[in-house]
């Protein structure tokens, strides 16, 4: 990995534009190098799952290289989110990165704790979600490349809304054009049409601010490819209903979410990855092989949030090894997505709006009314033969915290044990890994699981 630049500790306000660019680029490359390291490690795994990891990391690295190239060559690139119709960005040939990329994708990186400490030293409240705090810190420290434009996010929580305000007050970012599609409160046809219009406005905004033009034929191609990807994902998800589940936390699952939405949406490489994932899974299902060949499946878990990426390597393998507990399904791996009708421009925007408003994880549950917490858990518990539901209780989830009671009641109605832990998915200091393990163990024991 590249050495950290000397001025890493300098706040963004004190940097010149060039210094800022160099500092941010150095940091972005450092993260790229972290994934390159993981790719190298995965390359040594001569298994179908290993090959999947290699393919995934290759796609990820390619998207990162595109951003790096854009920074270095001063060509347009965008900061956006997985839930702001990434198909549109692909169709407009716009490289992009997720503002919350590090917590969502690279929280296992060795520098993450230093970053969290840096955020605290900067005075950021520790009651703020770490997934928000980290990008705030990167922005304020000049560690995030300044894009040509920003597509903001105003749901599901106040934290994401606040992040846009941070951008608008930061000297390096305040003049970067920003458009945040406005998510309506309801989830009916009127809401979908409204949000479709927001996406159209977003396209106009991107055209104006980046110079890249939208070609509807290209959008159709991308959406059709996206549909192919999603059909395979749907098929793969059925495999995880098998007992034993063919894959655990490491494969499929949340990776599927990342490949379909976080790197480049509607890309044949992603479809190819899913095809491989599906084939790999089908073989295991036919052979009756479970996720972990050494530790047979005893407990089937629904983890109803993103995985604890800040300490995932210390916790998830332990679950499997200590308890035979397999993460069969989680919030981000769940597939409720509708396919995009590509018959016209109108139907494409309509269905992209529907997908990004009502289907994508976390937005689906926490933007709308709380019924999705209940209905999604009910469906997943039944379909995936779940033995217990775990709501991690991430400290930043004020949006979801109020629904813990609804989830508990739902699980009670289903006759399935429910555990609410209380932790930070990215910061191991909040609730130590050992404490989480103790709570989970006590829960399993108390509920007679495993």
């Amino acid at each position: 990995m590249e050495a950290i630049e000397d001025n890493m500790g300098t706040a963004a306000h004190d940097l010149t534009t060039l210094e800022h660019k160099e500092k941010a680029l150095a940091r972005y490359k450092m993260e790229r190098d972290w994934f390159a390291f993981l790719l190298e490690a995965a390359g040594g795994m001569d298994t179908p799952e290993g090959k999947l990891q290699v393919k995934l990391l290759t796609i990820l690295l390619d998207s990162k290289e595109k951003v790096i190239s854009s920074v270095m060559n001063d060509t347009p690139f965008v900061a956006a989110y997985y839930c702001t119709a990434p198909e549109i960005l692909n169709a407009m040939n716009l490289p992009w990165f997720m503002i919350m990329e590090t917590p969502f994708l690279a929280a296992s990186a060795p520098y993450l704790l230093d970053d969290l400490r840096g955020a605290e030293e900067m005075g950021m409240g520790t009651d703020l979600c770490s997934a928000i705090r980290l990008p705030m810190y990167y922005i304020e420290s000049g560690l995030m490349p300044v894009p040509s434009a920003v597509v903001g996010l105003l749901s599901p929580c106040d934290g994401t809304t606040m992040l846009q305000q941070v951008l608008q007050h930061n000297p390096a970012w305040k003049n970067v054009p920003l458009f945040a599609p406005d998510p309506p409160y309801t989830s009916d046809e009127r809401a979908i049409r409204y949000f479709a219009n927001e996406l159209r406005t977003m396209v106009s905004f991107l055209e104006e601010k980046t110079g890249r033009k939208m070609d509807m034929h290209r959008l159709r191609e991308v959406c059709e490819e996206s549909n192919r990807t999603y059909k395979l994902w749907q098929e793969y998800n059925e495999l995880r209903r098998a007992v034993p589940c063919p894959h655990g936390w490491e494969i499929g699952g949340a990776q599927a979410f990342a490949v379909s939405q976080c790197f480049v949406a509607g890309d044949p490489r992603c479809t190819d990855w899913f095809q491989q994932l599906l084939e790999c899974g089908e073989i295991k299902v036919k052979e009756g092989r479970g996720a972990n060949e050494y530790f047979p499946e005893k407990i089937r878990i629904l983890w109803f949030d993103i995985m604890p990426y800040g300490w995932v390597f210390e916790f998830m393998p332990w679950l499997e090894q200590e308890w035979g507990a397999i993460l069969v399904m989680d919030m981000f791996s769940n597939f409720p997505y509708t396919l995009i009708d590509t018959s016209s421009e109108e139907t494409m925007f309509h269905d992209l709006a529907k997908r990004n408003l009502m289907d994508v994880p976390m937005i689906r549950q926490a933007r709308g009314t709380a019924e999705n917490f209940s209905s999604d858990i009910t469906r997943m518990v039944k379909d995936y033969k779940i033995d217990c539901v775990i709501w991690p209780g991430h400290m930043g989830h004020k949006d979801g915290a109020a629904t813990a009671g609804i989830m508990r009641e739902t699980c009670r109605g289903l006759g399935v044990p429910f555990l609410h832990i209380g932790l930070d998915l990215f910061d191991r200091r909040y609730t130590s890994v050992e404490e989480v393990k103790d709570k989970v163990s006590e829960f399993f024991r108390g509920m007679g699981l495993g």
Partner: protein
Amino acid sequence: MTAFDDHIRQVTEFVATMRQQGRPVRQFALPNDANHLRAGLPIQVGAGANPGIILRSDTFVELGNPDAGSCGFGLWTENPSLLEDGRVTLIGPDITESPLGSLPFGQVVMVGGAGLIADDQVAIGQAQVVADQIEGYMVRSSSRNIWSRVSKRVGARGFSFDTLARSLMFLIKSALPKVESVEIAFVTSSKDDLLTLNQIAESAQAIGRAALKEHWKARGYDLDCDLHCGSCHDKTVCDDIRKVVATRLRKDKEALGDDAQ
């Protein structure tokens, strides 16, 4: 009158319309008694009856692929006389008539019981999520539509809509003793025919969501807290005042700009 009585009538009218338009409409009567429903079935029905999953390669018939069309919803009434207990209506080809095919799929499950109340809606909805309870039949894990597979193994045994209807009726009556009558309509004729059914579905689902909200409210949970701007009848006041605030900000900026000059 229960909230869905009108929808039940609409479904009846839909069937009549389909008949008038020349669609193949078949109706048959199944036993009323839950236990008799399972008699002679070529499959197992009940908890754990379908422990495995049905892979693509094992599929005899696919029902409700989004490309083919899908519409699934449930209705209930406290007036069981609105329904003919045990009646199954099939519009379009049967499963046995479409081996290795992919059919559009509409499924309307109508449930009646004098003792049914709005609070039973959750249980009625849950009873229709069959999960692993019908051997050789897997409803795919897709929340927005009903999309299912019949395995080759049970297809070879003659799994048909008769089988599916008996299974569903048995499961519902077993899970909900208050239910006195169950009637089911299946539509496999065309995607266009499902569009009409979808209109009834959307209206019913809106009522269902409202009832669900009340159900949770009675338990002390507000699914849709009304304390938000979207549900406030004075939202337009705030919208107008926001424009006023924006106007003032613009004027302030202009004034600052003038001062600077």
